[in-house]
């Protein structure tokens, strides 16, 4: 078990490193953050000053090494005196870096002077709040709907829920969000159109974010239950005279759990991805919106910190899912 765990952990670290490298390279290709921090007609020396200050003037591999391991020899308060391309000496204080290995992703270029990781962590509780609400909404309702459909296969309810599930998977979340706002905020005035702060603010974003997962999970619960309900051990349980409720809850449901738990693990990624859109629509001040705004403004440190953080959570959750498999199905554990 421990060997399995350590092997998966090592794989996870490699995945996170790969993600960091990819984001670093992609962000560098898309534009100059220094130019975006200054008025469009800024002189070259001003832009150069910002580049030097944040180390953006160094070769890419040096930037990446510095990003990972920090300044060699500790950095500290250093000032660079260089001949500016516009003429004249430039004296620029360099922002010290400790490197990702010490938890330092650098200072946010957008929220100047503030550590990038702190900016991400500050926003994460809001995203977590939204994702937990969306996850609970998706998981609980999918269990209810999936069971209902499986137990009443072919009924009007079954067909209706299946249509809704297909709709839920096909509707783009930004469109669903706007539709909900129109109906429940503008027409009925029941819910606030946007923002955060109360439980009421959470309802529409959670429904929007959770709808895709709800649809996918519902279909999986339904098909999983239909498979399991046809198995010999279910027939045996019924033959023993157990109540239908006990048959479903104790014998059938646990055996549909493995694919479900896999999907729940993947749902974390879907929720993080969906949060980027949902948080933008509902003006929810979470990590998703932070990522969008940071990409737009080329705030490299924050994008890198956010992607690292999201990748880490995704990898950890899926590691957990792997471990849960063993608990759910001892055969999985033995095979490994």
């Amino acid at each position, binding site marked *: 078990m421990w060997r399995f765990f350590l092997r998966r952990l090592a794989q996870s670290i490699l995945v996170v490193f790969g993600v960091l490298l990819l984001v670093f390279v992609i962000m560098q290709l898309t534009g100059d953050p220094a130019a975006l*921090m200054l008025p469009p007609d800024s*002189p070259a020396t001003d832009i150069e000053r910002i580049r030097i200050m944040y180390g953006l003037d160094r070769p890419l591999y040096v930037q990446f090494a510095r990003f990972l391991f920090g300044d060699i020899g500790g950095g500290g308060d250093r000032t660079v005196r260089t001949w500016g391309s516009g003429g004249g000496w430039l004296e620029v204080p360099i922002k010290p870096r400790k490197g990702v290995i010490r938890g330092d992703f650098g200072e946010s270029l957008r929220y100047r002077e503030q550590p990038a990781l702190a900016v991400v962590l500050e926003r994460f509780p809001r995203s977590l709040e939204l994702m937990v609400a969306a996850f609970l909404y998706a998981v609980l309702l999918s269990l209810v709907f999936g069971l209902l459909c499986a137990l009443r296969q072919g009924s009007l309810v079954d067909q209706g829920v299946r249509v809704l599930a297909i709709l839920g998977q096909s509707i783009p979340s930004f469109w669903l969000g*706007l539709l909900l706002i129109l109906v429940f905020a503008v027409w009925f005035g*029941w819910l606030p*159109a*946007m*923002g955060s702060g109360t439980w009421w603010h959470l309802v529409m974003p959670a429904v929007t974010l959770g709808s895709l997962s709800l649809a996918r999970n519902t279909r999986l619960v339904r098909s999983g239950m239909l498979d399991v309900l046809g198995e010999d051990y279910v027939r045996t349980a019924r033959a023993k005279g157990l109540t239908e409720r006990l048959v479903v809850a104790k014998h059938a449901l646990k055996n549909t759990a493995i694919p479900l738990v896999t999907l729940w693990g993947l749902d974390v990624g879907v929720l993080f991805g969906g949060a980027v859109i949902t948080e933008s629509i509902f003006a929810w*001040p979470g990590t998703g919106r932070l990522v969008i705004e940071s990409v737009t403004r080329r705030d490299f440190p924050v994008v890198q910190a956010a992607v690292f953080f999201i990748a880490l959570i995704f990898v950890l959750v899926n590691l957990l899912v792997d471990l849960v498999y063993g608990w759910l199905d001892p055969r999985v554990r033995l095979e490994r």
Partner: protein
Amino acid sequence: MQTTDAERRFIEKMPTIQFSRRGFIQVATGAAAVAAAGPFILPGKTLAQAQKPVVIIYGVPWDTLDPHNHIATWIESITGNMFEQPVEMSSPIDPINGWKPLLATSWKRLNPTTMQFKLREKVKFHDGEELTSEAVKFTIDRIHGRVNKEFKGAVLSYYQIIDRAEPVDKYTVNVITTRPDPILLNRMSGFHTRIVPPKYYGTNSPAQVATNPVGSGPYRFVSWVKDGDLVMEANDQYWGGAPEIKKIIFRTAPEPSVRVSALLAGDADLVHAVPVEEIDFINKSGKAYVSHTASNRVALWRLERHKPPMNNQKVRQAMNYGANMEGLLKTVYGGMGKRVSTMVGSWHFGYDDKIPFYPHDPNKARQLLKESGLPLPIQVNVHTIQGRYPKDKDMAEGIAAELSKLGKEYVQTKVTVYEWGTHLKRQNACENDGITHNSWGNWMFDADMILYPWLHTLPPTDPGAACRPAKPEWDRIIDEARTTLDPEKRKKLYSEIQKQLWDDPPFVFGHHVADIMGVSSRLAWKVRQDEMVWLKEAKFKK
């Protein structure tokens, strides 16, 4: 008794809290008590109006609340509720007579490089520190990096000319420039001349003051969740009297339809950048109305004269004759905006109203293209952005469509849309040919503020220097006008350059960009020309 909008919204929202009979009775009793007591507690307005904060929604977020560390008009607008500067511009803008005292009560020029300001006495910053001439000196030192070597003003290039501020006595300060500056007063009306308290800004880190601002304005800072709510409350000690609206909240919603929905749902009172096509819908809703104006910002369509075919003067003229700016303003822009004859805004100092707009004359455009000597048809690529300014992409497509109407044997067009960062990168690298969208918020209300940044020759290493539409003759006029203190002489110089620009157009001359705001029915509000949203000017409707 007539129901107010706030009460009507309250009634409309009843179903959300109508969960049980007991709950309904509790709510109904509460509502009745509020309705009955309100008029006695607050004569002239209802309790609901006074208690509910005014919510303002922008489409773009703000990264800092430091008045000296941003480059954005909307951050200038938001922070302008907490900070003040020596002088203020009126709206409508009048760059000659529109200057109003704010933290300075009077000013006079002592010599070509020195202007003396008398400060308002007994003004307190929100932390209790008094405004004195030392605060003005500190502010100028701060933007120059003389307070903290790691911190310099973000738009310092426009303020380098202010060398220093010298206190004369407690309430008198001399502002000294490196050369005669005819628009020093303009510079003292915002951005880097927002005055900050020396003790607080001198002892706290830039990160601390960026998130916990202290100014002297009509509103004081309460809290800020990044990309979430920015809350301010009325400054009861404000020298101009406490504002009527006691609590204001700034929010961001990037999606325009969400901003409009929030307005119509009663969740917002002022929403920025309303789409043109939503105006009628809002005005007919009975819940809100639209206030719009041609703003201080001018849309410019740069003709990339460093590359063919725009390196030909006749082609550049043909683009202006063929673009049909007047027609596009009517059809695409919903009749809003306001044309400019060249680059200078119609109310900016130096605008020459005798210079005509380019007429829409397709035949003339075709004739000029034939005379250009270039093989026809020419390829015109239009480079634009989307969603940063009202109808930016639509206007680009409109210009391309109008040019295509000249005939496929004359012009072929293609529109490419970029994200803002890429758009800027391409311009700095001079990668574009054809026509490039730009816009410029002239926050000094003077011809210099647009002609110098867009036309004057740059040092060759500066970004965009290679594609700058500069000419030695234009440099001469711009340089002379920016060091001449005589207003009449400056006007003549600007008139001269605008005539030259008309003959040799570096741009498809555009228009003032419309500023369109949605306003809830409970507020009396008129949008300003300078894009500022200052809540001290808003009132509850009686």
